[in-house]
Structure formats: structure tokens, C-alpha cells
């Protein structure tokens, strides 16, 4: 059954259809949430909050073709809302031992993973959200801007800061003065 049909059924209250839609996207939404909030439990809360909202408000979705984008923005905005509400530093996400890459040089690959994780930790949540939406969820920048309710220029500039910080901190191109956190503090 194609996605549009599943969305139509879910809008009519078919929870199995909704479960099928969730299964198709849950792993990636969870990954994006962990990237943004940096806390596995908080990420779980954000995903759950976003998906409950999605189920509850699905009858109001006017365009079934936009289900994916709608779901992603619900979850990402749940992440940012949770961070704003908590107003505290959250426990750092732990790299999952289940995802050790199969690269020939495991120690080097693990070092890269730790570097990217550390670099992302230093970013502001709003910058991490842009990275998650654009590079992990594959959304074009105009859709990122729409999801975060920010002008396209702001989305582009946030991505610019994030990429600059990540690139230097991940040491792809060594720099004598490491970049610090662009944009301020962790919520």
C-alpha cells in the first residue's frame, strides 16, 4: 500500500496504518532527535510527543502528500520545545555500541565518530536542528526554513555556522585556532 493510502486510512482512525507510517520513519526521527537534544531519554520523549501530536491532529492534515514533512517538523519542534522548557544542560548522548562502523580502520572511524559527536555537542540546539533536518533527514533548505519557522536566509546562515564549526572541530582541515560554539549556549 502506498504512503498516501496509509495516510488517508490513518486520518480515518486506522491505527495500524499509522503504525506502518511510524515504522517507515521512526529510526531516522529518533536519530535526528538524539542529534538535536543530546539525551536519549529526552529524544525518546520528543519523538513520542511529536508522534502523539501527529496521531491526534492527523484528521486536520489538509494535504496527505506532505505527511513526511509534517511529521519531521512536529518531531523537530518537539525537540526544541522540550529543550526550551527544561532550560538545563542535558545528559550527553552516548554513542550506541550497536553501530560500530565496518570500516577497515576501526580506531580511526571511531575517532571520527567521537569528533563529530563532540563537535555537534558544542553547537547551539537551533544549529543542530538545521544540521539534523538538512543532512540527516535530507530536507532541502527551504523546507528546513519552513519547518523551523525561520527565513531561508536564517536557515542558510545557521547551516553556515554549523558547518564551519563542524569542519574545524572534526579536523578535516586542521586549523591553528579551533572554532568555539557559534551562536551562544546550550538551552
Amino acid at each position, binding site marked *: 500500500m502506498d504512503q498516501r493510502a496509509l495516510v488517508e486510512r490513518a486520518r480515518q482512525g486506522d491505527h495500524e496504518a499509522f503504525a506502518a507510517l511510524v515504522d517507515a520513519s521512526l529510526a531516522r526521527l529518533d536519530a535526528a532527535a538524539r542529534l538535536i537534544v543530546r539525551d536519549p531519554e529526552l529524544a525518546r520523549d520528543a*519523538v*513520542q510527543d511529536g508522534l502523539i501530536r501527529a496521531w491526534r491532529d492527523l484528521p486536520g492534515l489538509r494535504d496527505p502528500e506532505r505527511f513526511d514533512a509534517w511529521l519531521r517538523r512536529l518531531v523537530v519542534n518537539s525537540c526544541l520545545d522540550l529543550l526550551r522548557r527544561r532550560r538545563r544542560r542535558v545528559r550527553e548522548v552516548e554513542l550506541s555500541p*550497536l553501530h560500530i562502523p565496518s570500516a577497515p580502520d576501526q580506531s580511526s572511524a571511531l575517532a571520527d565518530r567521537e569528533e563529530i559527536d563532540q563537535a555537534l555537542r558544542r553547537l547551539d540546539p537551533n544549529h543542530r536542528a538545521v544540521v539534523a533536518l538538512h543532512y540527516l533527514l535530507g530536507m532541502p533548505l527551504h523546507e528546513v526554513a519552513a519547518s523551523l519557522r525561520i527565513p531561508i536566509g536564517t536557515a542558510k546562515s545557521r547551516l553556515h555556522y554549523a558547518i564551519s564549526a563542524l569542519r574545524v572541530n572534526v579536523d578535516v582541515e586542521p586549523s591553528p585556532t579551533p572554532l568555539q560554539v557559534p551562536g551562544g549556549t546550550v538551552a
Partner: protein
Amino acid sequence: MTSQPRFERNLPALLEDVYLGSTPSYRHDLLAATGRTRQRPAWSFPERWLPVDITNRLAFAPRLPTRALAIALLILALVVAGAIAYIGSHPARLPAPFGPARNGVLVYAVDGDIYSVDPVSGSSHAITSGAAIDRKPTVSSDGTRVAFLRGDGITGDAFDLMIANLDGTDIRAISTATISDGDPFAWSPDGTFILLNNVQGDLVRYNANGDAPVVVLRQTYMHGFQPPTGQKVLYETITGGRTLGLMNADGTAATPIYTIPPAETKDGCDYGTVAWSPDGTRIAFNRRPIGTDQCRIFVMNADGTRAHQLTTDTHQLTETDFRWSPDGTMIAFDRWDNTVGAWQIQPIGVVQSTGGATRSLGPTPVSDGAVFEWSPDGASIVSAPGTVIQWPPSTAMPSARPMIIDVATGAAHEATWSVNSWPSWQRLAP
């Protein structure tokens, strides 16, 4: 050339490697939780069964006697006819769509409604009211109408594109399908239509007279109407390279004028802001200076020739969100200084449009920068913290008092009113 494009290319795989796993273990609990949650019935989403401008004005109307109503209508018709005759013999003077104009009211959103305020006296008036969330007011070039987005505050992504007279009359929706409040839009210079970029990347023409919307071009960002006539539109291609081009406002005759070579591109910087000079002869745009990690303002001719960096400051800078002054002699912009590796936000910068050093204007904004607008007469800038335009679009959105900055002296004073939107300044005939 730097290694940066390669890094950006590899980043999705790197992030997937670090974060993407199998289906989370809480999948069962999550579906159990949604299973326990009742869906809202479709009828409870007002916009699904009533025009949005009606849903926000549900009220019991008292019954009027038929005779009194007929007399009232007759009087009203006479008054309207008299007004039309008067206006017809005294046409209102409207400003030209581009260039300097006289300052009118400032239009802004706060707490989900649209207001206008006289920046001199501080007196404000509601243009819209009600339970709906009204956002992103944008005054037409002739200063007579305002376009804005309206949502119900429940389904966060469901907005309608609305237009209204500045006195709050004739409020109506001109969109026929859901749009996002992140979708950028702009009035045509003659005020007859609005071009909007939707989340699919389509450029859609919404007609102010209510005619059906038309997709002008797909996979295109819009960067404004070319002054002085507005017959041409500057566009950016979404696919196939970082290219700017010119096309007719109906989407025909699209012609590329400038391309950033692949080795010189920078995600998040290229064309972050693009803006016409008020006389339509030059275009300012963002790009990365070759061999640097900066994001600076460049200026080129309208045909894409003679592109050159605008500011001469030697610091490691990011310059974005720029605005030409109404007379085209200056450009104001947000900027961050990364010389010491700390992304320090700077006060709004202003530079002569012919280039040179930057002059700071007003206080240092919040870390996310300022949302600002030139006054139509070019003497001042109204600036609000960038945080006022963040999610969520609700009555609980953060608001702030804008600063009014004198461009000549740099002196700034805080307004007596608060906004949670980009302020839009009405233009009046000089």
C-alpha cells in the same frame, strides 16, 4: 579551493554512521501511547469546513427589523456612492514601488494579531483580532494593503495567505491550499499579486483579486522583482548548481546570469540573502570569498557582470540579512566576527554601496542577529531581536521592543510597543 565541499558531501553518511540505528526499542510503548490517544475529529479543525476568515469571527448577530435594515442599506449605498464620486475626482497619491518614500505606519504582529503603530506618536491600532494566529505582516509597495499568514494555532503547519486593507477592512484569504509560515513571499510592485515560495520549492502566484493561484516555476527560489518596473524576477535554481537568473514574472524567458563554480560553493552561505538595488541596476548577494571560510556580501551588475566583494574589513566575517537603503547609497546587514574563533555578534553594520569600511549602528543584537528594516525615507532603521521570529507561532511567542536607530548618528531608542514579527514599514507618497 578548500576541502569544505568534500566535507559537506560526506556529512550525511557520517551522521548516519553516528546516529542512525535500527528501530528504537521504545517503538511498542510509543504506539501503545498513540493508541490510547483519541484523534481530534475532523470537524474540530475549523478551516476544514468554513472559510478561514469566517471561522475566526463566529458570533451571534442580533436580528434586525427588515425595514430598518433596508433604510440603513439605502443610506449606506448613498454614502458609498458619494465616497466613490469624491475619490474618483481626487485620486489618492501612491508612492512609486521602489526608492525613497515618506514614512507611514509600522505594521507588526504580536500575540497572534496584526497591528499598525505610528512610530512618532506611538499610537497603535489593531488590523486583525480574534483567536487565529496572524503572522508575518508585509505591507504592499503602494502602502495600501498588508499580506499576512493566518493559522488556527492548533495545526501548526496549516496557514492561509491573507490580505487586508491597512485599516483592517476587506480581510480575505487568497491561498487555496495549506502553506507554511516559513514560506517567503513578496508583493508584486503594482500590488496585484503575491509570489510565494512553497515548501515544495515551487514559485506560486497568488492573485489579490481572488483568481486561482498559478505555479509560475518549479524548483526555484525567488529573490525579488527588478526595479523599477518589476517585470523581471531574480531567481535561484534549487537543482543543477548555484545559479542566479532573470525571468519574466510569469516564469517565461528564464536566463542564468551568475553561477558560483562548484569548487567555490558553501552550504548555508551561497545566496543566503540576495537583494536588488532600488534602481534595479545592481544585485547584492552572499557568497564565500575564494580561499576563505567567510560569508561576505558581494555586489554585481544586473546582468551578472563585475561581481566583487563589498566590504573591505579584514576580519573573519559573516555578513547576512542585508538591506539596501531606499536611495541605494548604503547597505545595512547583520554580521558576526569569527577572527578569534568565537562568532561574536556585532551591531548592525552599514556600508556605502560602492564599498569600503563598515560602520556600526546601534546596540549589539542578540546572538541570532537582528531582523530590521529601513524606514522609507532612509533616515532610520527599525530593529528587533532575531529571536522574535522563532517557533512556535502562538500567542506565547517571545516578543521584544524594537529599537529605532538613527542612521546618521547611530543613536537608538527603544519603542514603546512590542513585536514578535519582522516589522514592515508603510510607504507613502512624498
